[in-house]
């Protein structure tokens, strides 16, 4: 079973199920996979490939975001860089762990982040924990289908902690900019955050 996040694409090959279950993801999705040793389940993204050993996990790999995350809820997954076919260098995640990778690098376990945070969207929540504003802007943008820009590149490192739900975008932005000591201007889909 696959739950796709907004603005995400899952491509399933013609030969799916023949001798391996292989899918290609751009975006974010939660997978619940039954173990089948003969037909391994693999999620390919631009940066990493995740091989599933019967489990529930989330993969996040947006085309416009070099950061790729894989969070494991239960079961077990093995992750390797897409550029590296050597299975022995793959990273095996334990439940609750989150692996992060930037395209072209080997994935690493991120001890700071809890897998639940990455799954929050499946319950209608967006969770940030000391998340840089550049990333917050991208995720909020996807969440609300708006285009959020920062007026000043120096703002991109400002960190935000927040748990947001399905409130209207203006209500959320209002609170976010207040906490960040910023202001925002909105014109249709275009939203610009700038210093007060």
């Amino acid at each position, binding site marked *: 079973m696959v739950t796709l996040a907004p603005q995400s694409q899952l491509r399933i090959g013609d030969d799916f199920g023949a001798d391996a279950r292989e899918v290609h993801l751009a975006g974010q999705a939660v997978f619940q996979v039954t173990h089948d040793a003969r037909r391994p389940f693999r999620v390919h993204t631009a940066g990493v490939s995740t091989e599933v050993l019967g489990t529930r996990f989330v993969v996040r790999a947006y085309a416009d975001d070099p950061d790729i995350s894989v969070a494991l809820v239960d079961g077990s997954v093995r992750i390797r860089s897409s550029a590296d076919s050597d299975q022995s260098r793959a990273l095996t995640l334990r439940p609750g762990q989150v692996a992060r990778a930037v395209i072209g690098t080997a994935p690493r376990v991120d001890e700071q982040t809890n897998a639940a945070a990455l799954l929050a969207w499946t319950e209608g929540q967006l969770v940030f924990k000391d998340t840089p504003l550049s990333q917050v802007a991208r995720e909020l943008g996807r969440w609300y289908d708006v285009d959020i820009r920062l007026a000043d590149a120096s703002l991109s490192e400002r960190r935000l902690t927040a748990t947001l739900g399905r409130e209207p975008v203006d209500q959320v932005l209002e609170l976010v900019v207040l906490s*960040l000591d910023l202001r925002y201007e909105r014109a249709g889909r275009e939203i610009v955050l700038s210093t007060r």
Partner: protein
Amino acid sequence: MRRMPSIRIALIWLIVATPVAAQAENQGSERGPRFLLASSTTAAPVRVDARTLPTLGQRLAVHFVNETVTQALESIAAQTGLRFIFSRDVVTLDRTVTIDAADISLAAVLTELLLDADVDVVFSPAGHAALVPRRKPSVGEVAGRVVDAVTGAAVVNAGVEIIGRDVAATTNAEGTFRLPSVPPDVVQLRITALGFVPFVQSDVVVSTGKPVWVLVELRPEPVRLGGIAVGPSWFAAPREVPTSTQRLNVEEIRRSPGAQEDVVRAISLLPGVAPTAIHRNDLIVRGGAPFENLFIVDGLEVPNINHFAAQGSSGGQASLLNLDFLRSVQFSAGGFGATQGDRVGSVTTLSLREGITDRHAGEVNFAATGFGVMAEGPVGAGSYLVGLRRSYFDLILKASGEPFFLRYWDVNAKVSQRLGQRDELSWTFVGALDDWGFNIETPEDRYDAALMAVNDDQYFSGLTWSHTAQHSRLQLTLGRVAHSFHTFQNDTLGQPLFTNRSTEAENSLRLNFNRVLASGTELELGAAAKHADRLRYDIEIPGSLRTDLEGTARPLDLDSSFTAFRMGWWGEARTQWTTRFSTRLGARADYYAYLDDAVRVAPRLAATLELNGGAALSMSAGRYWQTPSFIWLAGDPSNADNLRPFRVDQIVIGFQKLLREDLKLQLEAYRKRYRAYPTRPWRPQAVLTPGIESVEVDVPFGLEPLTSQGTGSAAGVELFLQKRSSSVPVYGLASISINSTEFSALDGVSRISAYDLPIAANLAVGWRPNALWDLGLRFRAASGLPRTAYINSGPQQGRLDFARYNDDGRMPAFHALDIRVDRRWSFRRVQLTTYLDIQDLYNRDNPIAYVWDQRDRAPRYERAIGFLPSLGVNIEF
């Protein structure tokens, strides 16, 4: 002479980009967080408490042991479902806390967690709690010093409060006070101290730019008033200024529509005062000529404080003094005391303020008249204040294609040093360079430029030492006033017709001593010596323009210099006889070495009877002497022998009543009698008056034989209503002045004076709807001044016809409406004030002079600028 040419183009002098307002926000001095509720995205969050927001009242159990605030918040979130939003880069949450409570409200936990974090919590209906940095509110600061008005001694423990706000302070041992964190606004300060009459200082402009410094002079409470309560007043007590005296504060002048931020023009709104013409600031006070007015700047008598000054008189194009430098202005239209002498008409006392002392600050000003920069701050044991301005007149005149331009620079500076508790030294310097130039491109331009013009440069400088003792004060001022004039007129071919190159410089030493006697009587004694060490005159007038009674040419070719020495002594006693009755008795003597050692004595007295209900009756009577101006003495070889000081005896009776504590009504009547007024043997119908536009119509001012044989009289009634800004944010003044003035010159016939002004009315109203806006309106109306006919045929055609001196009807009545809008913008460290000022809103385009047109061979009216909008901006930082 010296007109401002017609400019009919509406000029926008400066375009100001509209800045985004940063509003002053709610004051927060609380240590804990404030709780706010964001109910909509359009309105700002509103403050709530646990009673109105159930979320805050919910109970929880906490057990934090050395946890970070972030961890604690997570735990609260888990218990309450509250979703926190914060940024650790914006609010500081790194401290650790220990709270152990089984049953505690959310409000209490959050308060404990966020104590001193400078954070507010904004709740949303959806259950968010955003930690929002508490914005440092945009605030200004009011600081100042309270001193005894008589002795200048520090008043200790005086209470200073901002009316209507919960902000107050008391003065320290040096008399200084400080009110930090005042939101930007225009406020009133109430100052109270034991043994002093309470006082309200209105119109203190609190800015987020530089701190505002206020010097408050408290009057000692007269001993005999000891028993009765004296309420604070927005106005000086009647016993202090018995008659005809008004004080204006700087804000009242600045916001005066159409005054062009010129202190002298602002004075013309007061009762009994009118400008001779709208383009100039020569003032007619109660029918007197402009040369009868005295201006005192920081204790220094300055004959003319204006750019493009009229030599021997007191007016000009605009004042040299930068309004931002002024602390106070006091104007007396008559009945002034013995301490001020050598002028018979009015006295304007101007004090420059001191610089602020806690930091360096600056200001950039684009005003209606020019742009300026200034700086101030601490230096040594005191402060400095310096400013430089340049006028725009040249650019405007050039843009409008006029054949000439006026350009000036001026500098104002003051340095003050406190030498211990009792002594203070201050130095004031004001200087100006004026340039009257020509842009002549066509013969038409040359024709239009053939009028009298003046290029003058001047400075005045005063060094004052002030020593304060317990009941007395001694002030010594050493000053120098220097003014060089190049007054000239070219003919229509551009050749010089008349030239006057003069330099007048005078040194002065003035000593003044005040003492409060045990009885409560206030005594003031003083002496002054003045030595004009440089009076040089190089003047050429062709005989055709300087004709005597028979029409014979009497050319003047003068190249001479002389010196002049004079002294004055004065004494005055101000006594409170009963709780209601007070007097001011004084006398002065003046000695003029250069007028054949003449000595003149002038007794002066005033009395005030205070009635019930804030009413008072006052009177003053006195004799006033004035020396001839130096240029008159140089104007003909006979003048030094024939001219003597002229005299005015005057009596003023007044009634005033406080209708409210911020609203004063005043009614006054006066009568003046002139003697030994300068007369003109070649023009026996006329007494001496300044103000011709061209040497082709009459002999230039003062450059002819003169005698002291004129007599005259002036009488009038004035009604004046003044409202100060208070909790009722409307302020303004209204005056109606009725005057009749006449003179008899050498022919003995009594004629109306050139400055006879049957009726003049002024209305100026301002409204401050909130801390950001000021709206002002000014309406002026006055009778036209008398005209003198021109000779319309024969060899003297185009010259004034003295057979019909002041007997050719009047100029059209003058009236004009000016409006002004001020907007203050407060930023964190910068204060911006922008304004729009429109002069002559309905374009009345009042005539400024009745002149002879050489081409039409007929008289016509010269007109000034009509409708004239201007924008200005002032930036303080």
